[in-house]
């Protein structure tokens, strides 16, 4: 027997989306935290903690799109046309915040506040839309004759609006703990103080989504609470509790790397929860990864490159982060 191509590709795409959520998560989070920091110098500094890496972070989103088109063209075509408006709004949000990195250093002092607002607004819209897309995706997308068969606004439900807010909390905590790692002094203390309520909020989001999802989706409840799945799933809530407790504890004295890593753990655990709920569907509730897979010639051809190149990408991306390691202070202004 050969390689199970749809399975391997599903894993690669899940990995790509995970990388995206983690990496663009913290730099979107910086946009969400911008309103809490008013001084221009501090805002410059926040920007400079991610200026050298943000477009690499966003490239994982492009990989997710292209990989989905290559491996599961049906899923790509159905999901994106079903979630048309939130996808377009997310992309426009990313436009506003992406250009702000350069534009706010080029704008005159009187006009800079526009790009600060673009950065904040774009980050909020992009994050909220991503969370809403996730919620709409869990709710399921009806498919008839290989095309989306629902309405233009079906994506907007109380549940999806809540997941939109929930993702804002998650990204804000990622951004906050990233800034604890990258800043120093009074500024850092502000993020340490902010991290506590954000952690508690994220915990609340996780609990609410964990109750809301099985209550309103019997098929997901069945998946969770049937044997042997329940055994696999049982450690997740426990690990969430341990990670949150450790995170709150780590904030007490001179935190550096720990809060960020523990937030990554929390995000990862939440992500696996969604994975377990939906697997093996790529368009819930009915289309599986096998139904949506493209021709094996396409999956095989692309897999060869992906397996060879993704480790190299991870390698040089890690190197780039290493080059820019350490605290960022005002003397590291990158723009002149």
């Amino acid at each position: 027997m050969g390689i199970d191509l749809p399975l391997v590709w599903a894993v690669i795409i899940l990995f790509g989306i995970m990388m995206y959520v983690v990496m663009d998560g913290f730099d979107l989070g910086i946009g969400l935290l911008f309103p809490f920091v008013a001084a221009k110098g501090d805002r410059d500094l926040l920007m400079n903690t991610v200026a050298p890496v943000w477009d690499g972070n966003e490239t994982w989103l492009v990989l997710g799109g292209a990989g989905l088109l290559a491996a599961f063209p049906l899923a790509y075509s159905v999901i994106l046309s079903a979630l048309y408006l939130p996808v377009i709004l997310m992309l426009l949000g990313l436009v506003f915040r992406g250009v702000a990195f350069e534009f706010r250093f080029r704008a005159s002092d009187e006009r800079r506040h526009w790009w600060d607002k673009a950065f904040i607004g774009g980050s909020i819209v992009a994050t909220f839309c991503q969370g809403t897309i996730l919620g709409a995706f869990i709710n399921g997308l009806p498919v008839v004759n290989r095309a989306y068969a629902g309405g233009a606004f079906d994506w907007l439900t109380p549940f999806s609006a809540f997941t939109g807010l929930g993702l804002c909390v998650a990204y804000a905590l990622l951004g906050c703990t990233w800034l604890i790692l990258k800043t120093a002094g009074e500024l850092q203390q502000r993020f340490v103080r902010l991290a506590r309520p954000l952690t508690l909020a994220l915990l609340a989001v996780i609990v609410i989504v964990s109750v809301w999802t099985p209550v309103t989706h019997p098929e997901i409840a069945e998946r969770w609470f049937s044997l042997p799945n329940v055994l696999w799933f049982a450690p997740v809530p426990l690990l969430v509790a341990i990670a949150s407790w450790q995170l709150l504890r780590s904030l007490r004295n001179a935190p550096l790397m720990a809060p960020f890593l523990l937030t990554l753990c929390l995000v990862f655990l939440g992500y696996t929860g969604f994975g377990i709920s939906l697997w093996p569907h790529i368009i819930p509730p009915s289309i599986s990864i096998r139904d949506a897979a493209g021709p094996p010639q396409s999956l095989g051809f692309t897999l060869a490159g992906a397996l060879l190149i993704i480790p190299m990408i991870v390698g040089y991306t890690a190197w780039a982060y290493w080059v820019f390691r350490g605290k960022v202070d005002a003397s590291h202004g990158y723009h002149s």
Partner: protein
Amino acid sequence: MAMWTLDAVELARIQFGFTISFHIIFPALTIGLASYLAVLEALLLRTGKEVYRHLYVFWSKIFALNFGMGVVSGVVMAYQFGTNWSRFADFAGGITGPLLTYEVLTAFFLEAGFLGVMLYGWKRVGPQLHFLATLLVAVGTLVSATWILASNSWMQTPQGYALVDGRAVPTDWLQVVFNPSFPYRLAHMSVAAFLATALIVGASGAWHLLRGRDDPAIRTMTSMALWMLLIVAPLQAVVGDMHGLNTLEHQPAKIAAIEAHWENVPGAGVPLTLVGWPDMEEEVTHWSISVPHLGSLVLTHSWDGQFPGLKAYPRADRPNATIVFWSFRVMVGLGLVMIAIGLWSAWKRLRGSLFRSRVLLRALLLMGPMGIVALLAGWITTEVGRQPWVVYGALRTADGASLHSTAEIGLSLFLFVAVYFTVFGAGIAYMLHLIAGGPNSSPEDPKDAGVLRDTPRAAPAGA
């Protein structure tokens, strides 16, 4: 109902045309500027001359602005195949998807990964490593062009696939990638990107010279741009001619529309219509001025050679000749002016008055944006000219669109137009503002301090 469906497709086409036209400006300049920066840094490392350092710092700021706009407008493109062209994505995703994935894997990550070091890493890595980062970014831009043009060319001249259950399934990847129009389109587009960049660099130099700022940095960049024009503009004419002959072989209807060639007269050579107004309804070209036999000479390289006229195709299969006739002439006309300016500059250079000829400098300034205009005109020609097909001969554009209402597509189109003009309008204004500031010229200029100079490996603060 049919009327509404047609409208939605038209709106989706306008949206794609609008977003891709805005987007392509940035990667085209990214391709040109990345290679230019690599050349500048190589010269700096080799000669140690201050002028190259100033030029590198100056153009890398413009490059950074441009690159950011390319990234955000490019993410939109990666998703638009699904949002607006989902039936195309389902039909051809097995072929274009892998090509785009390879582009992301081999080019986008490479560019983004080393861009940070290139722009912000002067004080954190040594000069050799910094040069390597610049070089890898430049290579990444060209690799990116290679994959995306393989994908586009496959849609223009598809091969190496079979139709299985109504979808395109690859049978031979070498044939898919190296499809007939790919090498010509890649060469034509890469050269166009270099030319467009050279014109912007040259126009920037001309602007400063005309305003009386005459220093080594300004002279060097103006001179480099004009050398580029002199050598590459004629080369582009040769590449373009080869591309045209390739199109005649594989997409003859496109050539018929470009030349407004309606039908052959038995035994007679085909004239070349220089100007006129092709009328798709009446199947004639109004007010045409043509040169006998020139069409045969250009396209068949023979006196009496013939090629199919538009009337040889059913009306539903004809591309719009009014548009492509003129877009093609805009492109070629601008190309000829570029060649002329290149030759003119060579003559002035020989006479030793290159930087003093105000007429030449004014012409160069006016030509600043014309490389981009020619590039867009060329893309309009090739994309409108392959209609009504999205995958040539295999899938019609109308059958590739998503099934959205006009309201949805109309709303998103409105948002794209409003946001792009605001955001990228501001970005282009910032680029022009930076260009107007000009490169630094004194070696002590604090702005360039530490940039590729001895480059002490500063210990990261607080680490």
